[in-house]
């Protein structure tokens, strides 16, 4: 969910853009982290752990912990908590290490 009004902050958002998550069309704002856009669309499971394939969400949101690795435009192991959203991005969950296509 987006914060629409806030007692302290005003949010300057980029242009609205479309992207896909596992083939599903979604909307977000250009330049925000992919993870923020996914979260707003109700997506909380971003990846699956290497060994037990347990679902993972983001944890640190600043590119430190690697719990948010996804495949973006075919490139695996992208940290979506810091990677910026662009028009038409193709975002996919990867299981485990992520194979290079």
């Amino acid at each position: 969910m987006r914060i629409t009004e806030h007692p302290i902050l005003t949010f300057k958002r980029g242009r609205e853009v479309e992207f896909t998550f596992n083939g599903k069309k979604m909307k977000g704002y250009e330049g925000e982290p992919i993870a923020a856009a996914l979260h707003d669309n109700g997506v909380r499971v971003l990846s699956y752990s290497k060994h037990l394939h347990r679902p993972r969400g983001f944890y640190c949101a600043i590119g430190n912990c690697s719990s948010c690795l996804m495949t973006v435009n075919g490139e695996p192991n992208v940290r979506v908590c810091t990677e910026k959203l662009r028009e038409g991005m193709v975002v996919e969950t990867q299981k485990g290490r992520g194979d290079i296509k």
Partner: protein
Amino acid sequence: MKDTEIAVIGGGPAGLMAALAAAEMGARVTIIDRNSRLGGQLVKQTHKFFGSEKEYASVRGIDIGRLLSDEVLKNPRIETMLDSTVIGYYPDDGVLGVEFEGKTFVKIKPKKVVVATGASEKFLPFENNDLPGIYGAGAVQTLMNEHGVVPGENVLMVGAGNIGLIVSYQLMQAKVNVKAIIDAAPCIGGYWVHASKVARLGVPIMTSYTIKAAYPNEATGTLERAVIWQLDDRWQPIPGTEKVLKVDVICISVGLSPLTEILWQAGCEMKYVPQLGGHVAVRNENMETTVPGIYVAGDVAGVEEASSAMIEGRLAGLNAAKSLGYDDGTYSEKRLEAIKRLQNLRSGPVGEKIRQGLAQLVSSGGDYNA
């Protein structure tokens, strides 16, 4: 290869002040930060700060961040590299390896380095602690205050230090319900004024409580419930005191640890000082580490506060510039003033932990590079 006189790694309060101080003395500085904007932690701190007028007391963190960034950006002696992560330091030739936008690689050869990388959040072991919905408190703050997205509807905050208390307050400001703040310690670790702020909103603060387990929703795999239980005076859980809280978010705020990779790579002598958050570099009063020319400032030098981070940054910047021969005649005076302000901030009861930590660190070497 790019040259600069002083490279400042990290554009938080410590790095910004280091850059400004060094430029003020006449040095040329390059600030490198992996984010797309300067300010570090400050950009998400919507509350007014403590301290005195000199540390921008009563000004909100976000506004301090903006003020300092603006000053840095218009200073002709300071160059700023954003979206740039320092991924390595090669001690043999004194070169920093920088990755730009995760793609291009740049080498920088500075004469002096100020490491102001801040700290990262600690994790807490408990059953299912990796479920989606369990986030670091700082991460929630980033999502909410920087990107304007709320983390969920009902939150359990684990940790009643300043960060746990403040983020709880900020969650309530964003209309997210904080069901409880728990802390394993018998006393609230954060400032009592922060605690009273959230208590007044009807958020219960439960000391001597810890988290036992988290459970997912079967269908979605994301967090649905948390089980907490009480601890006795020997910090042992008391069976039968379990409480179930229906929450879709658990925020972990159990402390920070300094981001010291670059310092290890540089071969700085490191020491484990729990009062300062973990391993930190041994340093002298001028913020210089055991490797000549490498300075530290802010949370990476010991997890503390933005106010002290700013003064440490200033001190590091002044000294780095001075060691390059820059001194407009005001160096000694400014150095002493900074040291005195740091002492004042740390002189009270809440500064005791820091004083104990620093006693183990700073006294151990003296001014070995002098």
